[in-house]
């Protein structure tokens, strides 16, 4: 038990650190990420991680990149969780035709190959981080909806919900103030796993060159490092840090999610 709490604290610390870095990016970063210095510099005192092909300071890019990556990941997860929560709550609470309809839609959405669909959309439209965030959010709500629905089906049969019904509360009141708080234990870990998937997807899309060049994310940095020869020239300080940042952030949020799940003994699938 003791160990789990420690892991949790470590995860919370890391997530908080990344969020803080993203908020304070302007203050922490030693240079403006768009300023240009001598290109292809090795790590030195002035540029801790050297400079890239057009002379931007990689360390500052890394700090500012946390913004784009976190905004896309967390934003997409918020959209997905809200959607999934609404669909799951309503179909679990009202049952019947509405449930049948909502679950049908969920099943259909589950089968859409999401990344290929986003690739097509981003290829036609000028890709921007907002588009990717919205598309990820609108496509990733299905598993949350399923989990919320099955939990709602359990909770709605509990005595306190029955008594609230007898007291004559409106359905919307029962759903949002009586049932919703009891759904949180399953939604919170699901939210964290959604953040993780969204961030990995964003990084993958950026790797294909579909990222938003006006708002550099970690995935886009890896993409640039690869196509501009960072790997072949063994400039590990260029492509490794953004990748490690993605792994570290996703790791911390996923381990938080899983430890939450194990502690609460709730099954997510």
């Amino acid at each position, binding site marked *: 038990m003791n*160990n789990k709490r420690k892991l949790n604290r470590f995860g919370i610390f890391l997530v908080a650190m990344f969020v803080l870095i993203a908020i304070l990016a302007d203050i922490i970063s030693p240079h403006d990420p768009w300023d240009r210095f001598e290109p292809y510099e090795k790590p030195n005192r002035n540029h801790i991680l050297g400079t890239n092909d057009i002379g931007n300071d990689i360390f500052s890019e890394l700090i500012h990149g946390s913004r784009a990556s976190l905004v896309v990941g967390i934003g997409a997860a918020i959209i997905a969780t809200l959607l999934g929560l609404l669909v799951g709550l309503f179909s679990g609470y009202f049952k019947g035709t509405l449930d049948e309809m909502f679950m*049908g839609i969920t*099943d*259909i959405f*589950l*089968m*859409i*190959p*999401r*990344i*290929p*669909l986003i*690739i*097509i*959309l981003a*290829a*036609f*439209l000028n890709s921007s981080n907002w588009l990717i965030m919205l598309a990820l959010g609108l496509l990733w709500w299905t*598993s949350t909806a399923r989990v919320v629905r099955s939990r709602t089906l359990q909770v709605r049969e509990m005595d306190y919900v029955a008594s609230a019904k007898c007291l004559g509360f409106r359905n919307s009141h029962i759903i949002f103030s009586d049932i919703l708080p009891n759904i949180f234990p399953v939604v919170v870990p699901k939210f964290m796993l959604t953040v*993780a*998937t969204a961030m*990995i997807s964003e*990084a*993958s899309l950026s*790797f*294909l*060159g*579909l990222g938003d060049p006006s708002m550099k994310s970690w*995935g886009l940095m*890896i993409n640039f490092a*690869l196509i501009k020869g960072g*790997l072949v020239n*063994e400039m590990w300080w260029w*492509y490794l840090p953004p*990748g490690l940042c*993605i*792994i570290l952030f*996703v*790791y911390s949020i*996923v*381990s938080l999610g*899983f430890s939450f*799940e*194990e502690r609460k*003994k709730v*099954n*997510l*699938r």
Partner: protein
Amino acid sequence: MFVSKKKVLRYFIALFIIFTLNFIIPRAMPGDPITNLLGENFIASETMIQELKIELGLNKSLPAQYLDYWKDIFTLRFGYSYHFNQKVISLIYMRMKWTLALLFPSILLGAIVGTLLGALSGWKKNNMPNKATTWVFLATYSSPPYFLGIIFLYIFSFKWGLLPFKGFYETGTLLDVIQHLFLPILIMSAFTASRNYMIMRGSVLIEKEKLYVVYAHAKGLYGNSILFRHIFKNASLPVFTLIALDFGFLLSGALFVEIVFSMNGMGTLIYEALLSRDYPVLQGCFLIITIMVIAANFIADILYSIIDPRVREKT
């Protein structure tokens, strides 16, 4: 077989909606529909464009175009790629086998390794090796598959020169193919295994609190035989669901790994099509991937009903 009619209906609705989406997207997006349908690499004179518009049926009304679109799909005419100078369907057919050669061994290997290790990890006490495996799998779970690919490629091929850098060719012997597929399959398997591991671990953690386990203990069964005779069957059910639901995600992961290793599969095809904005190829790939994902879900449903009799009784 055992799949309910309702589910089959949902599969068809899903197919219908996604295919319709694929019809709407190039026509609704900003820009000239002829560019959207032929790809940006295609340059033609004004008269040729007029001819092509008639050939593609763009002068017809939208409902008529929509009917033609379905006719094309049933006759497997997915358009023509002016970038590759080939029919889209034959392009995809050529590339798909390599994607499948990467995907299926990885899913199988990942399922076996992931469920076994996950089951053991959920069952055993939280000792040092157990924690270490969980840590490794969690880290794999957290990394984008293509990034793992890049690192492995760098270490094994670039630094140590043990394995080849890129792709493989149709003429190679079986040994060549294995040598080239080794790293990509290793990475994809690790990626699949990590997801199965986490689910199986959680599932066993829940199952082992149940009464039938206590009863098995009381009967005097030894630890591991309780795990593999009793718990494993029940706990592995969520993994089956996961593999089906995850199929699309894993497939996308495989596409990215292919790109890193310059394999001649669908991932590289999509990447090349993206670079030249070759829309017919992109759309063809999307349709084929959709069919594959839905088929995988369907097969998983059938398997699931065979494994879990409770599902069968309900239908």
